[in-house]
């Protein structure tokens, strides 16, 4: 056998430069390794000045909506500017929920209205009492509206851990769904298609997840 894929990949130049926004939440190690495996050069940063020169921006996230938005507060304007420039912005899990306008989670926690980034108008709601919450494990993706981030993943499985899910105002914003009691959005995108997110963790979703990360890197290259 010849060299492994990983070895030959490391010999070629990175296909795109990606910044992973470190706003103090989540395990950034896995998403970084996944993006590297997908061909990206990755910089983990808390400096919004680095956004403009990147080919793409990843907004990771684990935890609560309010805490996420509090921590992401300083990035609100720089992210809006990046979206205006048409730079790809990829939200993962809580990072996807933050792309919407609001979340019931903050209200449930007695934290009042917490404003999201509002790239995808809509809100995040909690699963009903008829299912175990959190929704944890592997679930099947159904692509509803074509988008390059979802190329090749229809009918494949992805790994989810969450109690709330996004409900965009416009059904066209729903790229893919999964079924947990009811159908809920698993991938959403804004109107221009440059800001998008996955409710599941691509960096924990095996080959399907790596495919999505490669799709993202492709988007960053073509942009």
């Amino acid at each position, binding site marked *: 056998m010849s060299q492994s894929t990983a070895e030959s990949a490391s010999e070629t130049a990175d296909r795109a430069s990606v910044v992973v926004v470190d706003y103090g939440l989540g395990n950034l190690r896995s998403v970084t390794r996944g993006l590297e495996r997908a061909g990206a050069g990755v910089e983990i940063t808390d400096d919004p000045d680095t956004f403009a020169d990147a080919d793409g921006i990843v907004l990771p996230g684990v935890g609560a909506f309010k805490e996420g938005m509090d921590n992401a507060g300083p990035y609100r304007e720089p992210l809006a500017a990046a979206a205006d420039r048409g730079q790809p912005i990829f939200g993962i899990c809580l990072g996807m929920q933050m792309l919407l306008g609001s979340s019931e989670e903050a209200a449930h926690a007695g934290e009042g209205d917490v404003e999201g980034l509002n790239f995808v108008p809509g809100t995040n709601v909690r699963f009903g009492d008829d299912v175990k919450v*959190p929704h944890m494990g592997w*679930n099947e993706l159904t692509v509803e509206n074509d988008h390059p981030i979802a190329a090749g993943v229809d009918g494949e499985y992805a790994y989810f851990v969450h109690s709330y899910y996004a409900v965009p105002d416009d059904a066209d914003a729903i790229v893919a769904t999964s079924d947990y009691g009811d159908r809920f959005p698993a991938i959403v995108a804004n109107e221009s298609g440059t800001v998008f997110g996955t409710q599941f963790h691509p960096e924990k979703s095996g080959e399907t997840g790596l495919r999505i990360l490669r799709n993202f890197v492709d988007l960053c290259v073509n942009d």
Partner: protein
Amino acid sequence: MLTKRIIPCIDVDLDEDGNPAVYTGVNFEDLQYTGDPVEMAKAYNAAGADEFVFLDITASADGRETMLDTVSAVADECFIPLTVGGGIRTKADIKETLRAGADKVSINTAALDRPALIGEGAAAFGSQCIVISVDARRRYDEAGEHYAEIDGESCWFECTVKGGREGTGVDVVSWAREAERRGAGELFVNSIDTDGTKDGYDIPLTKAVCDNVSTPVIASSGCGGPEDMYEVFTEANADAGLAASIFHFGEYSIEETKQYLDEHGVAVRL
């Protein structure tokens, strides 16, 4: 729909030269050297495992640093969720284990000693990464709070520590409910009675826990093959089935286990 998860587990100790190595118990006898943790993680990742559990069984402070390096090496190869357990006693331990690349930490004795640790961990890092592990043992006396009937006899399940050698007097079902209330995101249920038997999971135990909590439950101990997984998913309603030796020694592959479940109507990721 949400699928049932199949999870291989490795017990990692330091070998004579101080290098991390996987050991597997064989019929309650000596632990047998099974392989290199990173290579095994890579193989299971490629074989279609849904998650991976890494238990540090060194129980020595000096081994901890080495183990965290190994956790990082495993995490770099594992594009599936990784749970790490063994020796996690404080919020600082949780933090450094997550930072090393674990997605979840499994806590056993430390949570029984100081239940507030569950809430502290959940508040700081999220419930989704706090897994509470119990080593249950059947007791046939009047001291329990929740009883099940096994072969016509009434018994309850007690939380034990030190590998089942010491009882705590705590009822497993009551403890599972308390752990859930305090913020545990998942329960990892081991049975001293079925561990190593390969005669099947402890169904009454797993069912008792699943019936009393809404948190996902990982069944462990006693898996001898795909039909035991089928039983624990359909009769006890477990969310995930964990196994070690049947996979490590090649008796069944992850793929044929999932194939069997799929053929019998259990939703799995194929």
